[in-house]
């Protein structure tokens, strides 16, 4: 009984790490740029397809290919900001939102044309045999995915807290005009933020793509869940996205395990509704970015 519970929790935490990464990207983009990014799922999908192309098709080393994929998605994100979102910055919030909806449709259909819709497996370098810790089974690719997610979350935190660009991001988040007056290049901050947020989604996609599989529509459910994570944690809140992601992962896993797997996705969302009734601003809604 305990073994089953532990197994459900471990499963949930690893998937939750991926949700958290997605959520952080989305929450940073919203917090700093006030852009609701509906193309977030497509950046997730691109991360997975870049890894598939580099590693499975072109034979690049798995780890090098992972890093290149994430950077590649970051570059695509930065280009999208520069070419599309920057031109829409002074428009009402729904205009950039619609632009990202359009972008999402275009990218997903482009992926169907380029890679065809059949699901692809990334035959990664890890052993398919499970590691057995007592009665609990975990495969090494999932452990790897979990550890990388933790490393990226810590890395993002350090980047925001300790670096020059991080300081500029926080300043822009608090007051864009004051930041500009103080000499912050807001254009650069926006471009970096969008690229960085996209790269985190790409990293999540590459990790979960290697664990599960890769197909053009994989971003749909992931995007929906990252919105849930961000709303649960409080819009624009960094810590909220992490806690929200892990909470969603574990509650889905436990819900599917003990209540009904047919309602796995519903359970997560019921939890969100209950949480929002209790705290409409989300779990960490008052606090904003970690200072």
């Amino acid at each position, binding site marked *: 009984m305990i073994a089953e519970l532990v197994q459900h929790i471990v499963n949930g935490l690893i998937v939750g790490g991926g949700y958290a990464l997605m959520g952080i990207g989305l929450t940073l983009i919203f917090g700093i740029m006030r852009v609701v990014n509906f193309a977030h799922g497509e950046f997730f999908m691109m991360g997975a397809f870049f890894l598939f192309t580099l590693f499975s098709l072109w034979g690049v080393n798995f780890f090098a290919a992972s890093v290149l994929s994430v950077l590649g998605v970051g570059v695509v994100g930065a280009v999208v900001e520069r070419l599309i979102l920057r031109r829409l910055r002074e428009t009402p919030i729904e205009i950039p939102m619609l632009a990202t909806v359009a972008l999402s449709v275009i990218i997903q259909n482009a992926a169907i044309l380029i890679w065809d819709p059949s699901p692809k497996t990334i035959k990664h370098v890890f052993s398919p045999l499970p590691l057995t810790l007592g009665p609990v089974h975990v495969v090494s690719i999932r452990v790897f995915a979990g550890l990388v997610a933790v490393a990226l979350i810590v890395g993002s935190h350090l980047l925001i807290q300790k670096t020059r660009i991080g300081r500029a991001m926080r300043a822009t988040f608090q007051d864009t005009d004051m930041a500009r007056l103080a000499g912050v290049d807001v254009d650069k901050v926006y471009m970096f933020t969008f690229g960085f947020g996209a790269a985190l989604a790409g990293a999540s996609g590459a990790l979960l793509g290697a664990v599960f599989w890769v197909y053009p529509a994989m971003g749909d459910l992931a995007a929906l869940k990252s919105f849930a994570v961000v709303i649960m944690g409080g819009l624009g809140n960094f810590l909220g996205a992490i806690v929200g992601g892990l909470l969603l992962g574990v509650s889905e896993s436990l819900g599917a395990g003990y209540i009904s*797997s047919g309602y796995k996705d519903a359970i997560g969302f019921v939890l969100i509704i209950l949480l929002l009734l209790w705290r409409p601003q989300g779990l960490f809604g008052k606090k904003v970015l970690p200072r």
Partner: protein
Amino acid sequence: MKISRVITLAVLAALAGVLATGALQAQTKEPIKVGMIQPLSGPIAAAGSYITNGAKIAVERINAKGGVLGRPLELIIEDNKSDPAETRNAAEKLIVRDKVPVIIGAWGSSMTLAMMPLAAQHGIPLVVETSSSSKITDPKTPGQKVVSRISPTSELEAVGAGALIPSLGMKKIGYLAVNTDWGRGAVTAFGEAFKKNGATIEAVEYVGQADTDFYAQLTKFKAAGVDSVVITDDAPKAAKMLQQMKELGLNVKVLVTGGSAWPDSIVQLAGAKAAEGAMFINFYNPYDPAMAGDAEASKVYVEEWKKKGLPWIGVVEGMRGFDAVYVVAKAIEMAKEPTAPKIMTALKTLESRGLYGLNKFDQNGQSYCNIIVTQVKDGKYSVVAITPSTKLWEMSAAK
């Protein structure tokens, strides 16, 4: 100014000429439109793309031989985005805008059920190529009267595989099914068949159409101590389930129903190790043309599939589209004109040997196809047993 006007006039005149000749040609050999609705985006887009490719092979072959009633067939393909509501929209578009006299579709049972009432309202015959929920050919279901289904119901699969069940040695079963009309129907049909043979269903778990992680369900099965798992889902998800069973150390017998997953697809998607020993219920064997209802057609189909460089794992799914087009072509030929009521009447008495077996329709619009049980043996495709379509027809006649 003047020169440009002259040029414009000249261009317009040329254009009119082109249009006029085009119209003339169309009048003599206007193509017969055939509507097709498949999931071309969304989580099951791969299956939809295989079926449209199979259908295109059939259309090319028919048109190369002079078409139907001396006119070429034209396939008008709509995407239902793996969604029932979109399926209804797509059907409306095909019926109202394109005025097709017949529609092939729409892969999933929930999707097919969603468009049936609309098709019935307009009197448009539906040729159903994949869906297996028994509701579709149940006279109580709205729209059933326009359906001609070449794919088998889950009940038929269970009957076809039934003789084999006692020898499989499955005693305590965990059932993993997709949470749609297809999955739920299959759980009922196979649940009964297994119970009759002395096996118990320990746990039934449903999974979402876009799910990729089945650890929660499989962990539950492990805790329940099942000795076998029955799966009803498409090939990619079944592959992932097998892989994750191995990851969790759940080494039990596996049977995959529904006909979309088959040994080659699972070996490719999950690896030979995870696939080893798994059994499948299939309706078509691409390696042995003699098993199909029409050996020559089967040979041509497989050759074309390879020649076009289409994914091999889709060849077993693609044949559904191929057969559906041949059934439609034959019905139009019998009807002597491509109108909906005539085609509907023709379908009732049609007999067409195809890849599924002998395609013809009982009083509820249901056809009985070959049921083949296959297995991965030493990483290779192997046939365990076959119940031919003709035998199922005899059995139903005896009843």
